[in-house]
């Protein structure tokens, strides 16, 4: 009789285990490749319009008028080895080139990895004031420029993206 009790107990345990154990959950996930928009946490409405190692562009969909755009560029210049003077020259060149170009903010910092210039300016084109927010990172002879153009009150969004692009592309 004892044997039967043992056998029945074992049977109950085995059956119970397989009944109440957690069944493997089959979970189908759409493994979408993480987009740049998601990865960089772009504000709403901004999309990546061009993506390359050296050329990256973002733009925001707007109903009409100037399309806010942010452009990342990489270039090289021997003059960049003297970054302060080089940036001075670039700004002077921009002023002479875009005659209505006015610098609002010109902040320079030197970090371990290189030189950073944060330049905010505006110019008038077709009777419209265009705001430009730019960062120039200089590491040796390499010059990374992130430029954002917009009109109106998009300064925060533009700066947020510029910051994200800087971290992503320049590592800062």
């Amino acid at each position: 009789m004892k044997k039967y009790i043992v056998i029945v107990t074992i049977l109950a345990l085995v059956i119970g285990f397989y009944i109440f154990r957690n069944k493997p959950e089959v979970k189908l996930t759409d493994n979408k490749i993480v987009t740049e928009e998601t990865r960089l946490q772009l504000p709403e409405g901004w999309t990546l319009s061009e993506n390359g190692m050296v050329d990256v562009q973002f733009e925001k969909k707007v109903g009409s008028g100037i399309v806010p755009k942010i452009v990342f560029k990489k270039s090289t210049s021997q003059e960049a080895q003297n970054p302060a003077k080089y940036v001075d020259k670039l700004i002077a060149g921009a002023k002479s080139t875009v005659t209505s170009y006015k610098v609002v903010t010109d902040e320079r910092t030197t970090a371990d990895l290189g030189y950073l210039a944060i330049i905010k300016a505006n110019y008038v084109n077709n009777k419209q004031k265009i705001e430009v927010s730019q960062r120039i990172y200089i590491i040796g002879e390499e010059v990374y420029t992130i430029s954002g153009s917009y009109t109106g009150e998009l300064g925060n969004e533009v700066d947020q993206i510029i910051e994200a692009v800087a971290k992503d592309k320049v590592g800062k």
Partner: protein
Amino acid sequence: MSKTIKSYLSISIVLAILGLAIISDSKPVGPVVVEVYGQQQCKHLNAECFWNSSEHDCCTGLICEEWNVTGGTQRYKCGPASTPTPTTTPTSGPTITPTTTSTCRPTSTSTPTTTPTAGPTITPTTTSTPGPTITPTTTSTPGPTITPTTTSTPTPTRTEEMTGTPVPTATNTPSNNNDGSTTNNNGNPGSPVCNDADPGVPGNLRATALGGGKVRLNWNDSSGPHQSYAVAYGPNRDSFIYGDPNVGNVTSYVVSSLNPGGNYCFYVQAQNGCRGGNPSNIVCTNQAGGVRVLGTSDNYNPLVDGIKESYGGEVLGASTELMGTAEVTYSKDKLPSGNRLDLDHSIIIPKIGVNFPIYRPQQIGDMLMVGHREVLLTTIDDRKVYYGHNGSDVFGGLFQLRVGDQIKTIDEGIENKYEVTETRLVNKTEVESLKAESDQIVLVTCSFTKPEFRIIVKASIK
């Protein structure tokens, strides 16, 4: 039934139930993730890619390779397929079971091999031709001909790091099929034969540096039967490692994404069906003895370029800002304006010692961007208007010109002689005064003493 038999029977039943339970439920404990790759656009050369075990999202002919480490995270980019596969495998999900395969994903049979050095064309009958690989797009050639399956046409891409697109070579490497037979990559049996006629040779290839890493190529149409052209380029005359195997049946093509100031040599090659012709003459930029790119290396202004590139408005192309553009502050420094040199274009005015290269202004919207110490060229109603600052080393001496004085321009090597026919001092609002006759050119600068006025000189061809 004896007790022993009953015991054995019971134990057997227990074991049988246990075995059935194990067999019927042999899946591992825990969630099973089946990753589904949806249809999505493939990543092009140098784009950051997603690397997961043996799968990646680069386009055909590219492979996802290690790029750099940012913030402790290994990152990958799409590189030429010839680049060794990354040896490190990032952590990934447990099981990859793609149920839908992206059409742009490379397969082992369709991945073109890459030729990092100057190589022959795919044309089996012309193997001595250096340079670009031709990927014929037409497949109507009768007979057992080469019909490359490679349909991806790598666009010449930014080559900042000289990692441009190696020309894919539709090599007919025999491969063994599962059934033991041997075919070429296209699945066509036997040796490739091309019966197409010689597509001829394009003539007089010229290169014009456009600035911003772009060079425009122009050539004379090949006289032979051809359907398209291939463009090849590289850092010197012996190395044509980049190119576009099919730019269409055109006689002008802009190669972009070049390293500003870098050396580049180019040639083009006509092609038809399965055959490429002999290459054109080779032209080089920014190289002694060849065509030089002067305006890109010393005049490139990333700040201006960024302003221009990020401008998201309609380019109207009007010239309303022209008159105002000369009002700039004089500086002795040559400033990097970002305007580009118009190659082989200069203006010579012996009387006032002018002999300047001509620059093409950049444009933002309807605003022409003036250079600082540059003579710029624009057109109004198809008439050439040269304008510049009134500094002493630009157009500062323009006020001295009188009717009958000589002006010479050299444009693409062609010399044009003009004689001054009219000089005027006009208010800057008198834009109509810039209009000229069909045989005239117009020179403009601002008045040094009257900022609101412009000096305008018109000269007719002799």
